[in-house]
Structures are given as structure tokens and as C-alpha cells.
């Protein structure tokens, strides 16, 4: 597993609503497009999808200034 690649994949899901929607709709396509290896794909197949959606929404709110300014 390559830490940088999986973090980049997660960062994209958190920052890009379309990327998150693609992952939720067609995870295998999204992971293949991102070049994840089999271990990384396995990690994402068992991911906490509810948490991913909630985290992505929370980050979007932060970026839009709709939540507390500081962590």
C-alpha cells in the first residue's frame, strides 16, 4: 500500500463532490481510474461509507465558511 496514493484518493473524495459521487456509484471504476493497488482497493471496499459522506460534507461546509473557522 502506498500511503501517498491512498491519501490522495481520499483527499479527492473529500474535496471533489463529483469524485465522491463516482466512488459511491461505481467504486471499482473510481479506484481503477485512480490507480489504486489491490490492497488499497480492499481498504476502500471495506471503508466506512457513511463516515466518508459525513466527512466530505463537513469539509465542504468548512470550505464554504458554514462551520467554525478553526479546527
Amino acid at each position, binding site marked *: 500500500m502506498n500511503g501517498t496514493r*491512498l*491519501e*490522495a484518493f*481520499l483527499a479527492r473524495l473529500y*474535496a471533489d463532490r463529483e469524485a465522491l459521487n463516482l466512488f459511491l456509484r461505481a467504486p471499482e471504476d473510481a479506484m481503477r481510474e485512480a490507480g489504486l493497488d489491490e490492497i488499497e482497493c480492499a481498504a476502500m471496499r471495506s471503508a466506512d461509507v457513511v*463516515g466518508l459522506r459525513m466527512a466530505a460534507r463537513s469539509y465542504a461546509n468548512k470550505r464554504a465558511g458554514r*462551520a*467554525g473557522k*478553526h*479546527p
Partner: protein
Amino acid sequence: MARGADQVGLGWRGELAAGIFTHLDRIDLVELIADDHFKSSPKQLRPLKLLAAQVPTTLHGVAMGLAGSEPVADFRLLNMRRLIDQLQPDSWSEHLAFVRAGGFEIGHLAAPPRTPTNVAAAVTNIERATRIVGSAPRLENIATLVDPPGSQLSEEDWIRQILEGADAPLLLDLHNLYANARNFGREPKELLLAMPLERVRGVHLSGGVWIDEPAMSGRVAGKRLLDDHIHDVPDDVFDLLEVLAAHAAQPLQVIIERDGEYPDFEVLLAQLDRARAALAKGRERLRVCKTMKAAA
């Protein structure tokens, strides 16, 4: 203030400035968000220098991404160094988080997959930050709504390995710890006691709100606790502070963070007093425990 005593203070926010300056007799220290002041002119920094001359200060960074697997850009570390040179705080801190990767800016703190590879990368980042900034950061545990995919280490083992690898102190955010425990089926006190408490130097207290999980087919929606800094510190978190004070003998610097929906300043002062009371109760438990051990 007796040397080596616990200290309790507030996070500096413009909206709280008047209250802070008026009540410095009840505030032991102030934490400044460093990133808010990286581009400040000497004139803009003057009020903060005035503050720093009257009360101990600490600088808190929010965007380095020290726990990311990518190297932190030099300019982020140099910004912190310059601000430290100008304000001469007692310490500085950052988060155990990644905030960007692969060219994507998350815009906030995210929990990376907790792996040995990530530990090694975080240690490298922190060691470099220590060299360039001139002192080791206090490193803060973050709250997360998602259990990071691909994690191979528990949160407490991941934190301990990074802190030991980088020989860095811990800024323990008790609401972040509480939120993660509640969100992922842990007992908060158990998680607290599993942390490397001997490395704690600073403590953050804040509040949050329970938010609904999204509806998904075949699953009953529950709630998760969001750390938002715009609600009062809950009783459970003050209880964790008491437990911490009963188990960590070293002096603790406690900061209450409030980022919005500000109550009357008296309410914040009352929360500082509650923190002092929790510390005092914990210190008494520690004293009794030591006395009993000595007598045994």
C-alpha cells in the same frame, strides 16, 4: 502563578479580544491561531505583542498537514518560524492530520490511514519541522467523522508511535478524543488512559453537536458527534480532564476553544473555572493515590 502549576486559558479570537484584555487576571495563558497572522504587518501584530507581554502565549497552526505522507512545504514551516521570532510564544503546536494530498486541498484536518508507512512519513515531517522552526511542536489528536480506510493501527498506537519517533509532546484535545470514542464504539475514559499521557503538555477543551448520519439503504441511520467549537464544553469532557489530571503528574496548559455563537464572556470565564475545578479534583486524586502507594 506558581512555577510548574497547571494553567487555564482561552483561544484568542477577535470577537473575544475585549473580554480577554479585560479579564487577564482570570486567564493564565492565551492560544493564538498562527495561520491567521502569517501575513500580518508589524502594525497588525502590535496588539498581539502587547498581549504576549502580559500573558503567556502559545501559537497553534492549522494547515501544515504534518501527519500527511507528503513532505510539508518549506514556506509553511518558515511562516511559523517567522511568527515565533516576532511573538516569542512559550510553545507552538500543530495537528496530527493531513490537509492536502495529490494536489487536492481538503480545506480542513483529515485523519490519514493509520499505517506504519504513514507513521514514518509523519515522523520525518515533524523532525524537519522541529529543525526549521527551531523547537518541537506539540501535536494534537484530531476528531474525525470517518474511521480512516486502510488503517492498521489503533488511534492511540498511531499517536504513540509518532510522538515517540519524533520525540514530541502531545496536545491532547479531549473533545476530539471524546468524539472519536463515541463515534467509533470506544469508551472515552478507556481511550484516554490508552494515550501516551506522559507526553501531554497541552489540553484543548471544546464542544460539538450530534448530527444525523445520511440515510442509506439497508441501514438504520444513527448520529455522530461533530467537533464544532460553537457549543459549550460538555460535562463528560470536564470529567475526562479530571481523569487526565489524576493520571498525568506533569503541569498541564488547558485551553478552551470557542469559534462562534459566543456566549457572554462571563460564561467562558465560568468554563475556565470549571476546568480549574476539574484539574484540582484530579490533582487531589493523584495526591491521595501517591500517598497510599507510599504508605503501602
